[in-house]
């Protein structure tokens, strides 16, 4: 198959090129290649997007999402690989669940589904999970996402033990005592609404702790969904000091601020919470200067029953995998904050490097994972049109640019816009 006439996002620039795919690899990139394929004239060709932080809910919460619906949502959103957080039921803390998730992903056969193993059994923060056994079944990282490993000694041993298997811990950073039942960012909007606030320090303290552990052990650590300006500062300083820390953020942290909670729309409830303009600006800056390596969605689909209740009782999370690419185009590319090459790196190259995944770049010999989109076309977000089971987005009515036309995984078209 040939992808013809597209604007191809290469590592060092965007060039009009044809791409020839043979089997599941990129075989040739040249000015003009003869043959049949996709006419990508006017479209932009990205390396297949990788979302290293999603919740596909299977096994256990299939009423919220399952690997099939999640996979369909992923390819519609332009993703070719996803990494599933282990907070399923049962928790992915053993080889059997990891095996199940990986094989369910293969059976569905749309997006490459990588399991992430729990750090501790049952994500209870006490005893190490079966890390070696899970690695054998293909987990690509470890995380107790949804909570922090509160005990620093357990976290230290986890990082050390994981290093034997070449796995990195992805740290959800949250000091539960400081969170103390909070549901939104602590600030003007929390006071206005009377919704209990979560101070930045609740996140920052754990970011700092995990940086300290990584530094003293000289091991890598990855910080999940950074939402605070002060967290960006901590990570920036750590990187300058040579600590092996990488970090991610999400569209809702670089695009909007916590004034959106004033509607009491429980779809704005997410953990960590959406914060203030000072944080949003720092996160954009962190993406620009490389402090924040990648963009993930933290795709957290929920059933309407989990959201259509009192704000305090509503589940945390935003269904974001179908809008993430357009958010990047609208809020990072069109604003001039990032170039297309930088966006490709944040959403494909960096996740591949951090986790050692294939793909991540359009180059000869690389996996034929491609995302082909029209960056000039816009649409209005309507969650009823989501293919994810999770319709929980606070962004209904937002006009976004960047429409995915084709998602190619291992040389096969897995999504084509209707």
């Amino acid at each position, binding site marked *: 198959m040939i992808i013809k006439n597209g604007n191809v996002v290469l590592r060092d620039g965007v060039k009009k090129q044809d791409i020839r795919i043979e089997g599941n690899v990129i075989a040739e990139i040249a000015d003009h290649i003869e043959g049949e394929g996709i006419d990508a004239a006017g479209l932009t060709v990205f390396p297949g997007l990788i979302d290293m932080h999603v919740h596909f809910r299977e096994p256990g919460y299939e009423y919220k999402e399952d690997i099939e619906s999640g996979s369909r949502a992923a390819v519609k959103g332009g993703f070719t690989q996803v990494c599933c957080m282990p907070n399923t039921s049962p928790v992915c803390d053993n080889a059997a669940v990891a095996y199940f998730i990986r094989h369910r992903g293969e059976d569905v056969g749309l997006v490459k589904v990588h399991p992430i193993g729990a750090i501790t059994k049952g994500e209870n923060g006490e005893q190490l999970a079966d890390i070696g056994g899970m690695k054998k079944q293909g987990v690509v990282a470890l995380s107790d996402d949804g909570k922090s490993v509160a005990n620093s000694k357990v976290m230290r041993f986890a990082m050390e033990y994981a290093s034997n298997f070449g796995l990195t811990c992805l740290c959800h950073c949250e000091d539960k005592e400081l969170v103390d039942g909070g549901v939104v960012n602590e600030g003007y909007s929390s006071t206005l609404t009377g919704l209990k606030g979560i101070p930045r320090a609740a996140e920052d303290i754990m970011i700092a702790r995990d940086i300290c552990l990584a530094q003293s052990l000289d091991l890598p650590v990855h910080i999940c969904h950074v939402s605070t300006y002060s967290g960006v500062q901590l990570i920036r300083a750590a990187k300058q000091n040579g600590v092996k820390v990488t970090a991610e953020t999400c569209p809702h942290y670089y695009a909007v601020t916590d004034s959106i909670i004033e509607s009491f729309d429980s779809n704005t409830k997410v953990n960590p919470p959406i914060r203030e303009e000072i944080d949003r600006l720092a996160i954009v800056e962190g993406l620009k200067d490389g402090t924040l390596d990648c963009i993930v969605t933290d795709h957290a689909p929920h059933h309407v029953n989990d959201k259509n209740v009192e*704000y305090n009782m509503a589940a945390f999370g935003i269904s974001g995998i179908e809008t993430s690419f357009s958010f990047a185009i609208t809020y990072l590319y069109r604003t001039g904050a990032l170039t297309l090459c930088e966006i490709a790196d944040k959403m494909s190259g960096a996740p591949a490097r951090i986790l050692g995944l294939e793909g991540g770049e359009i180059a000869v010999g690389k996996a034929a994972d491609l995302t082909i989109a029209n960056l000039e076309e816009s649409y209005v977000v309507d969650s009823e049109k989501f293919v994810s089971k999770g319709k929980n987005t606070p962004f209904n009515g937002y006009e976004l640019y960047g429409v995915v036309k084709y998602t190619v995984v291992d040389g096969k078209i897995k999504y084509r816009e209707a």
Partner: protein
Amino acid sequence: MLKHKDLLGLYDTSAEEICEILSTAVNMKKLLLQNIKKLPHLQGKTATTLFYENSTRTRVSFELAAKYLGAGTVNISASSSSVQKGETLIDTGKTLDAMKNDIIIIRHPMGGAPRLLAKNVRAHVVNGGDGMYEHPTQALLDFYTMQETFGSFNGLKVAILGDIKHSRVAKSNLFGLTKLGAEVRMYAPQTLIPKGMDAMGAKIAKRREEAIDGADVVMGLRIQLERQQGGQFPSLSEYSEFFGVNRELMRYASPRAIVMHPGPVNRGVELTSSLIDADNSKIEEQVLNGIAVRMAVLFLLTQREGQV
């Protein structure tokens, strides 16, 4: 005319609407003072108090207000466990709708719950206090008391001292008073002052004297014992010594100053007993005004019907 079907908070209530409620309450209070407690305004209507939090004073005040206007009343007390496990709030509301109930007065420990209910029911919803969000009728009765004493809000200096952070009363007062042209000062231990109050128009005082200086109204807010247990100040006696209001401090206030408190009062904590029982204390008057104001609110909300 009130603009909304419901009274959820003063944040989205205009100064004109507040003034209309207050002037309607003047007439209600006249009738009350004549001991006329069988009025026709809500005849044939039903009001339900749906309380997910313990309260005697507010619930009784609403219930009597509805009864004095001729409405039938039903009281539902839901324990907090039923919030966690039982029927959802929306389903409870729809059930009351199906029973042809006209007004729901809700108190709920979670901010925004009355708003969620109001969006999903036909009945008028009156917020009787939700979490740390709003308690509009308490603030309205406070305004009524201030207006009765001073005639106008313009330039009125109101000092609020106590647990600002967890107080829906402080917020509803702030939202309303700033719209009415009054000046609001606040003072509390830093652990009980939430972020952003200044941006909402309050002056956060550095010292008690600064808050009370020249104040026309000195309002204490109840200190819940659980705040001390939660480590936000060391002891009630220390609170009272450094953050409470006593006769000495009242010398900084305006000579015409009144003392208010939404109740129930911890005597000797927020305010000393001598202040509570003094001639310029309006604490008991607030209770009577509360009935008049709630009568006005219930009446005005139901007046909207037929005048779409």
